[in-house]
Structures are given as structure tokens and as C-alpha cells.
């Protein structure tokens, strides 16, 4: 790691999408008018594809090196040089960031291509692609940045593009509001992130090595290990602050509220930004700073708990949503929870592994959902779908594959990564968190199959007119779907655990970054296999349940009648058993947790977006007093006196040249008097 290999092509991976964004952003309107939308698509997609190819080249280059030396760097210039603070604009690649750029350019490239078809009808085609490219640039900057400040630029950049794209159809106020909400909630996180950066820099500076560069932080972090402020370790505090930033960006409870609303944006945007890449930035950041987090066990516990709670709570909310994209949104929040659970358990490679597979199957789900939405003429309510299996054969296929992957059924991709996380958290002793994650796995399988059954199976519920117009999407959209579905199918082979005869390649790949995984040797193999079977079992169980309720409808009528009657004694044993379970764990449980979730949603939103007025009358009363009397008074006074002074000063400017000269004379005389008076 000491002598990174200098290269000069990494910059192009990052800068090419910026070039695309620049051309489309500045000249897009003209290009579109002169040469049509094809020119826009060409300008937008080519840089991303080239970036992807370069990323593969970089990956091959890394592969050729010894594991310990897998480290490339491309320094552009010194950005800030103030005293001890030296910040360079440098891109680096190590086994972690190379995986990220492959996902960003690969999945991102597919989504670019898919967007050609999806956005075809939109007038602001060029604006869309300009932002998409700009996003890709910012995301690549975020993951390849070699220091925290540059990373922060990317961090804010992806945020900006995200807000712009959420409110892409800005003529509708709901959309701009959603963009606003994302913006405001993310500010909360950013404050934490910035505080974290400052704290790290400040404490390192105090120890004599002020730096924000990742490698140097890693080198010097032992110096500040024992530093404390207010009785709390600096490292713990900094990591907690940084985690708040990650919570905002990666939509962890209670800062998750913006993500479901973010679904107002175009669906490919949801796929790229709000599922595959941007929202995983928080996970990436923690993985990047793993050397720091490993020194702060209490932070890790917090992360694991927040992650597990998020995974579970948002999965329950996902159960009762009827909007096809909202289900996926809550599912994304829940899956991000898994990744944080992995981070909290110190299983960084498992978390990143899940990030990768999740990028595959969730992007696939979103894009398939987009295909469904377009086929249904922008209908997003699942209650009005159904029976689309034959009308949309490809979409159905890809949705099913990605859905199984999400449900965690072997040998699909999701199984390996999710199971790895659950096993790691269990073997790490996080039993409570494991239990939440385990339950969430069942819920996940249930809601995704509920969705599949509602959308693709059963009898059509759409009105006949819409029904007659349903059609499969064009090839340019189907192709990315198929590729992503294929990846969802085989993606798990990257990390087949050793118990199943694999070699967990991805874990070994990450070893130079995360260190050797511990605890494998003494963990009982039987236990691992048992847990694996359990989680597959609960997944299958969820699917079966969804099947029984939404497709066979055997359970629904009885359940609801029994609920109405209040005494479900008439039922068969087996049915009774399921029924009880369903009632307690799902109906009530769901209702309860949905309420909890909804409560959080409602109040957090209100609190943040609408101000604190609604939370309590008292606060609003005090607030009102303060606003009316103190703030207004101060502001008005200052403003008035400033303006008054301005008006008075301007009166000097009479327009008369004699008076102007008097002013000069007066000032000079005053200066001489002062001089005589005070210096003798």
C-alpha cells in the first residue's frame, strides 16, 4: 500500500460522464432540436460505456497485481493548500472502489440505455440525460475520491442531481415538494457528515498530522485512538457523526422519510439513484472508513441496531403499500438496513457484497416496474393491475427472477449476500439484530411476491381501455432488463460461502481493504447451515403465504370473516395455525409496525418540513413569541437601521461638486486633528 501505482486513465473514468453532462447541459437544447433525441442519447451513453470499459481495464490491471499492492492512484492537482491542510484532487482505486465503479458504470450504463426508451416521449430529454450523466460523474467522484473533502463534493453532487431528478417533472407541485423533502432531510445528515470530517481533521491536526486523505487517516489513526472530548472517544464521536450523514443519504430510520417520496422522479432515476447507487453511498463511506469504525465498537453496535430496525420496520411498511414503486422504495430502505447491519457486525465485505447484488436485482425490479408502469399508461396502483403475465412476458420473467433474488431463495444472487449478512451478525453475537433481520427476510419474500401476484397474475383489474393498450416495452428497454435479470441470477456466485463448497471470492478480494475475516474457524459449520436453511425456509414461507392470500385467496375470506366474528374456532387446525400466525404476526403486527412507521413518517416529515409547530402547541407558542418579538424585532431593527444609515449616507451625494470637495476637506482636516490629538 505504500507505493501506489500512478496512472493517468482513472481521471477519464470519472470525467467522461462530466463531459457528457457538459455537452448535453450546455448544448442539449440545440442538439435536440437540430439532430433529434438520438444525438442526445449518443452523447449521454457513450461516455458511460467508455467509463465502464475503462473500469474493466482498471479491474484487470488490479487483478494482475499482488493482493497487497492492488492500489492505483491518479493525482490531478493540489486543490487546497492551507497550512497543514493539503487536499489534492486525486482518484484512487483499490479492491473496494473498483467494485463500486464497476457497479456504477455497469448498472448505470444499462439504466442509461433503458432510459433511451423510457424517456423517449419527454420534451426535456436532454435535461434528463444531462442530469443522469452529472449524477454518474458525481457518484464516481464520491467512490474514487482519495480524501474526505473530495468525497464530500461527490456526496453533495449526487444529492443535487437526486433533488433535480426527483423534481424532474417540476410542473407538478407534488414532485417539487418531494425534491424539497429529500433536500431538507439530507441536510440533517450532511451536518453530521461535515462535523465528522471536521472532527477527524481537527483531532489529527492536534496529533500533528492534520489530513483528510483516507490513506493518511488510516496511517495516523492510532494517534487519536485515545483522544477524548466530553468523555467520549473522538473516534466514536466522529464515526457517529459520519454515520448520521450515512443515515441521511442511505435513508436509515428515522431519516428514511425522503426515499419513498423520491419515487416521484422518473423510474430509471429511482433505479439508478434511489436503489442501485446513490443510496448506497452511506454504506460505501462506512466501508471506506472501516479502519476508523473498527476502533469504535459502540458506534458499530448503534449501526447494527439502526440497520436491523430499518430492515424490519420498513419491510412491514412495504407489506401494505399499493403503489408499485413505493413497495420497492420501502424494500430498498429495508435492504439498505441489511447492509448497515453487515457494517455494524464488522462484516464489511458481506455488506458490500449485498450492495452489489442488491444493485443488480433492485435495479432490475425498478426498471421492470417502469416497464409495467409504461405499459399501463402511468398507472402505479397495483390494485388496478393483474394478469399482465402474458401481455408482458419479458418483464414478467425479469421481475420474477429479480423478485426471487430479493426473496433470498438459492441459488439466486440475493440469497448468498443476505445470508452472509445474517450469519455474520449471528456469529458476531448480535442476536437481537439477527432476529429482526431474519423476520425481515420473511416479510421481504411476502411483500415482493404479493406484488408479483398482484401485478402479473390473477385476473386483470384495469379498465378495458387501458387493458387494450398494454404492450411490451421496446427492445432497448427489454435488453437491459434481461442483462440485469441474468446478473441477479448468477451474481451470487461471487461469494458462495465455504460451507457450500464455494470459496467466497469476494471476501478474499476485499481482504487488502478490510483485513482477513475472523471467526470463521471456530464457528460451528452445522449452525451456519441450520441458519441458512431457516432463512430459506422463512423466505419460502413468505412466498407461500403470499401465494395463498393473493393468488389462491383461500385465506383472505376466512381471515376477514373470522376477524369480524372475533372467534375463529370453526377453522381447521392447519388453517387455524396459519391464521393465528397471520393475524398476530401479520395483521396486528403489520398494523402496529405500519402505524409505527407511519407515525415516524408523519411526525418526522412534519417536524422537519413543516416546522415544529405541529409537534406541541407549547413549542409553537414559544416559537411564535420568539419569532414575533425577538427575531422580528432584531431583524427589523437591524434592517431598518442599516437601510436608514444607507439613506443618510447617500444624502451626502447631493450632486453639487462644491459639497463633494467640502467632504474631502472635512475628512482631511479630521484626519489631521486626530493625528495631532493622539500622537502628539
Amino acid at each position, binding site marked *: 500500500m505504500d507505493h501506489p501505482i500512478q496512472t493517468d486513465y482513472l481521471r477519464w473514468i470519472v470525467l467522461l460522464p462530466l463531459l457528457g453532462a457538459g455537452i448535453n447541459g450546455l448544448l442539449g437544447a440545440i442538439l435536440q432540436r437540430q439532430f433529434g433525441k438520438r444525438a442526445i442519447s449518443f452523447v449521454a451513453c457513450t461516455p458511460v460505456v467508455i467509463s465502464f470499459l475503462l473500469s474493466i481495464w482498471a479491474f484487470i490491471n488490479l487483478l494482475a497485481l499482488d493482493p497487497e499492492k492492488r492500489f492505483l492512484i491518479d493525482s490531478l492537482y493540489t486543490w487546497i493548500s492551507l497550512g497543514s491542510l493539503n487536499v489534492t484532487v486525486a482518484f484512487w482505486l483499490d479492491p473496494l472502489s473498483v467494485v463500486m465503479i464497476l457497479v456504477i458504470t455497469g448498472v448505470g450504463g444499462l439504466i442509461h440505455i433503458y432510459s433511451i426508451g423510457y424517456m423517449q416521449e419527454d420534451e426535456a430529454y436532454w435535461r434528463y440525460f444531462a442530469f443522469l450523466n452529472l449524477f454518474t460523474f458525481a457518484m464516481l467522484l464520491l467512490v474514487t475520491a482519495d480524501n474526505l473533502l473530495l468525497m464530500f463534493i461527490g456526496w453533495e453532487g449526487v444529492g443535487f442531481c437526486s433533488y433535480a431528478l426527483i423534481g424532474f417533472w417540476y410542473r407538478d407541485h407534488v414532485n417539487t415538494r418531494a425534491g424539497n423533502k429529500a433536500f431538507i432531510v439530507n441536510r440533517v445528515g450532511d451536518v453530521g457528515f461535515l462535523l465528522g470530517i471536521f472532527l477527524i481533521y481537527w483531532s489529527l491536526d492536534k496529533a500533528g498530522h492534520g489530513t483528510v486523505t483516507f490513506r493518511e487517516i488510516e496511517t495516523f489513526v492510532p494517534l487519536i485512538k485515545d483522544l477524548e472530548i466530553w468523555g467520549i472517544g473522538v473516534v466514536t464521536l466522529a464515526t457517529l457523526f459520519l454515520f448520521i450523514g450515512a443515515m441521511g443519504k442511505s435513508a436509515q430510520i428515522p431519516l428514511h422519510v425522503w426515499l419513498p417520496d423520491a419515487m416521484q422522479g422518473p423510474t430509471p432515476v429511482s433505479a439508478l439513484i434511489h436503489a442501485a447507487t446513490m443510496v448506497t453511498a452511506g454504506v460505501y463511506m462506512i466501508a471506506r472508513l472501516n479502519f476508523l469504525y473498527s476502533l469504535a465498537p459502540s458506534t458499530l453496535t448503534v449501526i447494527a441496531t439502526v440497520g436491523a430496525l430499518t430492515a424490519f420496520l420498513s419491510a412491514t411498511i412495504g407489506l401494505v403499500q399499493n403503489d408499485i414503486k413505493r413497495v420497492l422504495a420501502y424494500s430498498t430502505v429495508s435492504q439498505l438496513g441489511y447492509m448497515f447491519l453487515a457494517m455494524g457486525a464488522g462484516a464489511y465485505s458481506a455488506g458490500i457484497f449485498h450492495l452489489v447484488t442488491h444493485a443488480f436485482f433492485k435495479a432490475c425490479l425498478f426498471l421492470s416496474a417502469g416497464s409495467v408502469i409504461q405499459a399501463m399508461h402511468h398507472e402505479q396502483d397495483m390494485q388496478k393491475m393483474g394478469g399482465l403475465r402474458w401481455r408482458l412476458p419479458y418483464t414478467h420473467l425479469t421481475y420474477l427472477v429479480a423478485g426471487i433474488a430479493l426473496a433470498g431463495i438459492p441459488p439466486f444472487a440475493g440469497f448468498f449476500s443476505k445470508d452472509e449478512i445474517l450469519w455474520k451478525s449471528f456469529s458476531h453475537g448480535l442476536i437481537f439484530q439477527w432476529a429482526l433481520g431474519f423476520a425481515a427476510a420473511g416479510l421481504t419474500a411476502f411483500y415482493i411476491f404479493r406484488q408479483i401476484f398482484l401485478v402479473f397474475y390473477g385476473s386483470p383489474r384495469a379498465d378495458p381501455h387501458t387493458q387494450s393498450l398494454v404492450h411490451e416495452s421496446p427492445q432497448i428497454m427489454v435488453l437491459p432488463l434481461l442483462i440485469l435479470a441474468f446478473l441477479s441470477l448468477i451474481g451470487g456466485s461471487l461469494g458462495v460461502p465455504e460451507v457450500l463448497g464455494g470459496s467466497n471470492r469476494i471476501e478474499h478480494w476485499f481482504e487488502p481493504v478490510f483485513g482477513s475475516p475472523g471467526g470463521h474457524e471456530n464457528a460451528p459449520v452445522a449452525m451456519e447451515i441450520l441458519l441458512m436453511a431457516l432463512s430459506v425456509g422463512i423466505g419460502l414461507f413468505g412466498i407461500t403465504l403470499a401465494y395463498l392470500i393473493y393468488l389462491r385467496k383461500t385465506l383472505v375470506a376466512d381471515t376477514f370473516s373470522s376477524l369480524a366474528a372475533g372467534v375463529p374456532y370453526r377453522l381447521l387446525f392447519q388453517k387455524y395455525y396459519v391464521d393465528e400466525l397471520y393475524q398476530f404476526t401479520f395483521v396486528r403486527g403489520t398494523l402496529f409496525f405500519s402505524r409505527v412507521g407511519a407515525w415516524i413518517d408523519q411526525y418526522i416529515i412534519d417536524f422537519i418540513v413543516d416546522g415544529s409547530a405541529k409537534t406541541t402547541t407549547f413549542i409553537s407558542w414559544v416559537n411564535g413569541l420568539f419569532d414575533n418579538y425577538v427575531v422580528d424585532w432584531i431583524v427589523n431593527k437591524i434592517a431598518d437601521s442599516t437601510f436608514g444609515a*444607507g439613506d443618510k449616507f447617500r444624502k451626502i451625494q447631493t450632486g453639487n461638486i462644491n459639497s463633494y*470637495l467640502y467632504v474631502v476637506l472635512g475628512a*482631511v482636516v479630521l484626519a489631521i486633528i486626530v493625528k495631532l490629538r493622539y500622537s502628539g
Partner: protein
Amino acid sequence: MDLTNLESLKYFYPEIILSGTVLLLVILDLVIQNKRVLAPFAALGCLLSLGATLQLYGTSEGWLFHRMVVLDNFSLFFKVVSLLAVLLVIWMSVGCHEIRQIYQGEYYTVLLASTLGMFFMASSTNLLMAYLSLELVSLTSYILTGSLHHNRRSSEAALKYLIYGGVASGSMIYGMSWIFGMTGSLDYAVIREVLHQGEANRLTLFMAFLFILSGFGYKAVFVPFHMWSPDVYEGAPTPITAFLSVGSNAAGVAIMIRFFFPAVSHLGEGGNWDFIPGVEWPHFLLMVSMVTMTLGNLCALGQQNVKRLLAYSGIAHAGYILMGLVVLNNIGLRAMLFYIVVYLIMNLGAFLVVIIVSNATGREDIEAYRGLAWRGAAVPATCMAIFLFSLAGLPPLAGFVGKFFLFAAVIKGEFYFLAVVAIINSVISLYYYALIVKTMFLDFPEPTDQEVAMTPTVFPLLLILAIPTVFFGIYWGPLFHYTNQSLGFFIK
């Protein structure tokens, strides 16, 4: 290096080319019927002069013409700045309706002569040269200001400028005569040696400096020598206002640095300058700086005429720039030079948008900017927002970086009160800059408001000014390096 007249000529190409262009312009004006070629010709002359100036980097430093002017990186820097300013102003003038009413030959001749004066202002090392160069710039400025025929505002502005300038430069040479009397020489180097021997009367010295400052200060627009500027800026043709606000302002700062640093201060350890002991000059400049920025900003607050508003904003910026002088070290000077370049770009840009709007509407008040972005002028409006926010010092624009360096220098020099005043001023200034931006974007145009179209020559210029304003906010390294390098004074 101390060269005689003939030897000096080969280091004098920028001035020679510029003078030649001025003379050729006079002749061309008589000979050629198509006056449109004059502007490109003037621009060509400036470009050649710029090339010659850049050529001089790296050659030896020293006195020219028997120690009348000096060739060093500092003078080269201001020559480059003046040439950039005049080139941009020529470009602006081409598309400006006001300028078309003026005799083109005279206009460009006088404009270039003024630039030549700025060259000497930055490089003179002799009290006589300082006066001559200052007067060359002043006289040409009066002509340019009054160049609109039968225009009430233009003539009135010229008269005020003339009287004010006459009194100021008269006071300056009166002050200079006292310096001459005390030192027996007009040569800066000799003056410094004599003054630092400490025999001169401190009070006389202070008063002489005060008189001299009236001449320098009126060029660089410091309170209380600023009174002419709002009226003149409002009355002059807009490109001339732009030229005065950046070019002659920068030259005023240059002549002032040249006089108060290499001429009367000693360069001490670590880039600190030692002023003549016993003269509380830095404290006086500190007060001037604070009053200048505060007064400029306060007066700009309620201003309805955008040109006048920019005049007041220019006064405020002169106050910011003066902060770098107060700290008496190279850090401050470097920050000043940096800010001058940044201010040149962003202020010219703001005036360019004023020209675009007044070309289309004939108006200069804020009302004329109502909903500008929605009246076919989205690009000028956006650029204007960039310029104004940069003037206000918002990141990530160049103005922020410039202010940052100035504030950093002041804080490093432990003038905390000055820093606080400057920061409060920046906040106040944000109000009136943002008000224009708000008018352009958030107010919707009335049906009576005309569409604002751009002439094709203006658009590239707008980009040429807007892009550096953003670019230097993100990547200022080279510019910083350049200004740092420009801080070389030839002192013997």
C-alpha cells in the same frame, strides 16, 4: 540594472506598440471611411502589446530610462491586467449602442492612451512619472466620460470628474512637493533611504502622505475621495464606467502600492514591510478601509439605478482591496493582486449585462431587470447571477476565494476588528446583490417589458467572463501562483 534611454527601448516594446497603435489609430481615422475596422485594429494593437508584455517575463528586472520607470514582475502584472481590461472593454464597446454615437476614432485612440497611462502608473518609480502617468489616465478619463454628444448626464459627469480630479491631483503634487523638499529627490529609492534615516518631521510627513493619498485615493476610489464616482459612473457610457471601475481602479491601487511599499517602506524579514516609524499610516489606512467598505455598501442598499449601485459596490470593493494594504506584508499584497484580477472579471461581467439590458430597453434601473430570465435573456440573467454572487463573495465563485485570501491576510495580521467589519459588510452586500438576482428570476415580467435580445458578439464575451468567475472559484491554483509571482519589486 540601470539603463539609459536607448538601452531601455528593447524592454519597452509593450508601451511602444501601444503608442504606435494610438498614433496609427489617429491616422487611420482620417484615412479610412469604414470606421468599423478601428475597433479590431485597436484590439490587435492591445494583443500585440500583451504578447510583448508576456515576452518580457523572465528577462532581467531593473530601472529604465534613468530610473524613471521600473521593469519588474509587479509592473508586468498590472500591464497584463490593464490590457485585459481594455481588450474586454473594446469588445464590449463593439456591441454597445451608446458607443456608436461617439466618433469611433477618437474613442479608441483615447481609450488606448488611457491604457498607456495605466502602464506607467504601475511602473513609475519617480514622483514626476507618477504624476504624469496619473494625469495621463485622468485626462483621458475625463474625455471618455464626456464623450457622448449633447448628452446631459455625460457632460455633467465629465465636469464633476474634471473638477474633482483636478483638485485631487493638485493636492497630490502639493504633497509630493513636500516629500521632495524633505528628501531632495524625486526618485523613490532615494526617498526611501532618506526617510528611513528618520530626520523628517513626522507630522509633515503624515500630512504629505495625506495629500498624496488624495490623488491616489481618488483613482482607487477610497472614502472620502470617492464622491465623484457614483455620479461619474452613472453618467459615463457604460463600457467606460466598466473601464474606470476596473482599469483605473486597479492602476490607482498599483501606484499606491508602488509608492507606499517599495518607495517608503523597507522589506523586512518574512515578507513584512516596515513603515517609517512614528507615522501611524497603517492605522489611518485601516480606518479608511473600514469606512470605505461600510459606506459603499450602505449607500448601495436602497439604490435603484444598477449602474449607480455597481458604483457603490465598487467603492465597497475598493475598501476590501485596501484591507490587503493595511497588514503591511506580502500576504496582504498578494491577496490584493488576486482580488484585483477576480474583481476585474466579475465586475466587467456585471457591466456587460447592464449593457445588454440597456441596449434592449434603454434603461438602467432595477425595474428594467424584472423577470429578465423569462424575457429571452436566460443566459445573461444566469451570468449576472454568477457575477453578482461572486461580487458578494459566495462560494464556489471566484469572488469568494478572493475575499477569503483578503480576510485570511487580515486575520493573520491580527486585525480582528477589521475582519469582523469586512464580514458584516459582505453580509450587507449580499442583500442588494441578491435583490437584483431576485428581480431577474423570481419577479415575472409585465406585459410591457420588452424582450431582451443579445447581439452575437456579446454571447462569447459573456461566457469568457462567466466561466473564469466559476473556474477560479474552484481551481485558483494557477492564478494564485501568478499573483504570488507578480509580487516581485525591483528594489535596490
